[in-house]
């Protein structure tokens, strides 16, 4: 792999990202034509943008690494990351859009009319966001180390600085076209090397048997529910992982913010369908890298597994072709960190600014502060927290950390959204209790993993993949506490649910009764 070429490619990605962010809007939307200007973002564009923001370092590098080490069970990561959108589509996409909420705390406020529930949601958004940003930074460090040999904290710092500059300067806010571009860049960067490799392999004189490694000693690797890679209780771990991924997606702060761009509930559903297709296409490729890696880079099985996507092109094609493909993959990986980190940072910074910082800053400055500065301070905090966490922790693989972020989301926001949208008897106390119980349980599991996971057996499985017990616990708490406190069902529940579930075209009174 040639550092110069890869660095150039990474530089181009950064420049293109910032460039489109700053100037793209200006070029594409200055017009004197109202018809052009007031056209909403189409579901296709929006879906590309959602996918672009969603496909993170864990998808781009982590999935291939996990499959390479742990075998067929890890294919569920690909499936789960995608199926999460199916759950979102079926359960919440349209009602959530109709609620008019922009962030998760907004939804909590509009549905439960409670500042306390809103506050709990704000803290959870920051927690989940931090947990999700952590692997992005680690991925960036890993990529730069693989490309140049620099220590991994350099890459993490580079991404953190670029993101904070970009977000604070106002570029790349939530600009749909930038994120849409990132999706296609990532897909190209991941797919092109595979196609080149496959073509070269077919046209070679004596093709190496690509699947040879799956026979004999490697057979266990290809078997489902094997314990290859040293994971105990594979059946429990698989189900728990699937639960986390399927139900965690709906609780990711940067995903929901994007749905606001849809003009109505119907467009939100269409967007989700397209997202399913786009993600399905993308996730075909990481497992291919893992299978090829099994044959061509078996030395990476172990600590270096997360770099298999970056290393593979160079291993197969020593020389210029390999360098070019390596540069392309490195660029795609950087696009993954940048888009996901920026989206997350914007989403977290917004919540920090609005719910945690604004009141305090106003008190300190006596009301004399600019909203813009508050957002900048919040953006700095939003990326500083995970950067500190990155410096302090170092055990977990990329996809495992992301899996834990999903588990926390599935144990908190999933029950809040699903029950909040579909259950009339949900009380404010029930919502708060469920969020707290689910959140505390899941975050405890995360901390156990970070500080020092149990050495093996059931404790390791239960804490390594907590969703299978934390998510039902949160649901149960919400239901039981709600049934015990029927007097605390929000007064506007019936009106809220009418608004959530009635298509926009139907003429009903959606306003809140005036107090």
């Amino acid at each position, binding site marked *: 792999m040639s550092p110069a070429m890869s660095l150039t490619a990474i530089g181009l990605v950064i420049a293109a990202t910032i460039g489109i962010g700053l100037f793209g*809007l*200006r070029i594409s*939307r*200055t*017009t*004197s*034509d*109202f018809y052009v*200007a*007031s*056209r*909403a*973002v189409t579901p296709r564009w929006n879906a590309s943008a959602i996918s672009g923001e969603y496909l993170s370092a864990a998808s781009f590098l982590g999935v291939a690494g996990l499959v390479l080490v742990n075998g067929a069970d890890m294919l569920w990561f690909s499936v789960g990351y995608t199926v999460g959108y199916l759950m979102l589509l079926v359960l919440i996409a349209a009602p959530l859009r109709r609620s*008019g*909420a*922009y*962030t998760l705390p*907004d939804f909590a*406020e*509009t549905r439960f009319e409670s500042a306390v529930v809103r506050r709990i949601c704000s803290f959870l958004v920051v927690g989940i966001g931090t947990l999700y940003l952590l692997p992005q930074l680690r991925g960036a460090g890993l990529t730069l180390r693989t490309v140049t040999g620099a220590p991994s904290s350099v890459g993490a710092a580079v991404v953190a600085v670029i993101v904070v500059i970009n977000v604070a300067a*106002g570029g790349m*806010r*939530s*600009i*749909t076209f930038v994120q849409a571009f990132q999706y296609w860049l990532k897909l190209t960067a991941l797919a092109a090397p595979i196609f080149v490799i496959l073509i070269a392999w077919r046209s070679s004189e004596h093709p190496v048997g690509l699947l040879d490694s799956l026979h004999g000693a490697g057979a266990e690797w290809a078997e489902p529910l094997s314990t290859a890679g040293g994971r105990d209780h594979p059946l429990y771990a698989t189900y728990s992982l699937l639960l986390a991924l399927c139900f965690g997606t709906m609780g990711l702060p940067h995903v929901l913010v994007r749905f*606001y*761009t*849809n*003009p*109505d509930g119907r467009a939100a559903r269409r967007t989700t369908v397209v997202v399913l297709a786009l993600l399905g296409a993308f996730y075909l490729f990481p497992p291919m890298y893992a299978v090829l890696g099994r044959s061509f880079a078996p030395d990476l099985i172990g600590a270096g597994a997360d770099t298999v996507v970056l290393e593979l092109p160079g291993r197969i094609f020593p020389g210029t072709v390999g360098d070019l493909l390596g540069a392309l993959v490195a660029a795609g990986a950087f696009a993954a960190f940048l888009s996901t980190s920026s989206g997350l940072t*914007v989403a977290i*910074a*917004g919540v920090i*600014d*609005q719910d945690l910082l604004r009141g305090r800053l106003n008190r300190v400055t006596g009301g004399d502060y600019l*909203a813009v500065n508050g*957002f900048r301070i919040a953006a700095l905090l939003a990326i500083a927290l995970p950067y500190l966490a990155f410096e302090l922790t170092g055990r977990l693989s990329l996809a495992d950390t992301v899996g834990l972020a999903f588990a926390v989301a599935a144990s908190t926001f999933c029950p809040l959204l699903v029950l909040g949208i579909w259950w009339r008897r949900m009380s404010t106390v029930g919502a708060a209790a469920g969020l707290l119980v689910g959140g505390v349980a899941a975050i405890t599991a995360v901390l156990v993993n970070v500080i020092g996971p149990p050495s093996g057996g059931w404790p390791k499985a239960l804490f390594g993949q907590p969703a299978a017990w934390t998510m039902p616990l949160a649901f149960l708490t919400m239901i039981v506490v709600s049934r015990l406190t029927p007097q605390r069902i929000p007064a506007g529940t019936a009106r809220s649910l009418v*608004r959530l579930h009635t298509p*926009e*075209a139907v*003429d009903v009174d*959606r*306003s*809140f009764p005036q107090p």
Partner: protein
Amino acid sequence: MFARRRKHFGTPADKATYATLHTASLATPSLREGLTPAAAGKASKHLRDLLGTAAIAICDSSGVLAWDGVGGPYESNHRRDAKAIAAVTLRTGRTAVLGPHDVACGDPQCPVRTAVVAPIVTEDHVVAVLVAYSPRSSAALVRATEEVARWVSGQVELAELNKERTRAMEAELRALRAQISPHFIYNALAAIASFVRTDPERARELLLEFADFSRYALRRGGEFTTLSDELRNVERYLVLEQARFGERLKVSLLIAPEVLSVAIPFLVVQPLVENAVRHGLDGTTGIGRITIRAQDRGLEAEISVEDDGAGSDPEVIRAALAGESAGDSVGLGNVDARLRQVYGDDYGLVVETAPEAGTKVSFRVPKYSSGVHASA
């Protein structure tokens, strides 16, 4: 140090005063809600502390609002009688003292034997009475009860004033309806009339635009709309203005598609555009350029309308926004007041202008604000 602190706390008489004032302040918040059973119930405990009697009751013509003090069987007995005890004072407005003959229940253990009934008066009407029950009455208790009742009267009067103020604010809010300017209607119809003979087809199209514009602007119900609907209406408005100004009016748009679905109060952008057209074109014969921007600012959307016209003195604009002048920027004042009403004082109009430097009017709206929902 020790001596100073003692001096600081004052004499026993001072301490008694502080304690009384403190107890009174505890009763204030509930009394400010007006004389409802709930508020009276919360206040009565503190009022009894003030008087130091066995029990007190607050009654109005409909019955007992609140009772505090001895409970159990005593309470139920005396609660029943309270209405009768209160009746005379409620009618006459004079303090009455009732002895055991009228009050006592026959149980020798019961501390409720006499009652002092003092009126609570607002605006010359007896709205309720305060009844202080004790084993025996004294001139001091009568005096104290009267004073407390007078103090309660003051608080209840303040509560009434509060309610009046809320009503006045609601009336103001209703008066702040979106307005379309009569000038525009006149000018648009005049411009259409000029096409009737020369270009009947165009006149017909313009009339249809005018009809659509009116339907939007005069609609009933829903206070809010989406930015994209509001922009569509601005387009109709500009088509009509272009009929009048022709090539002299140039419009460019810079709209971030992400904010098109933001809910905004309806008719807030159109008056700004109308203002820009007037400032950009009136008084000149050259070309006027108007730029309409809508940008994504994270949790908020920022909308601005800019013209390159004559500009104006910032003081004039300030007066118009403060509602002091009925000058030609009256539309701005209305938009400013409505935005503040909906989103709070942080979200008013921002006007940047100077003579000969054009005018830029901008405002921000949060993407989500509780109670704000676009209605179709």
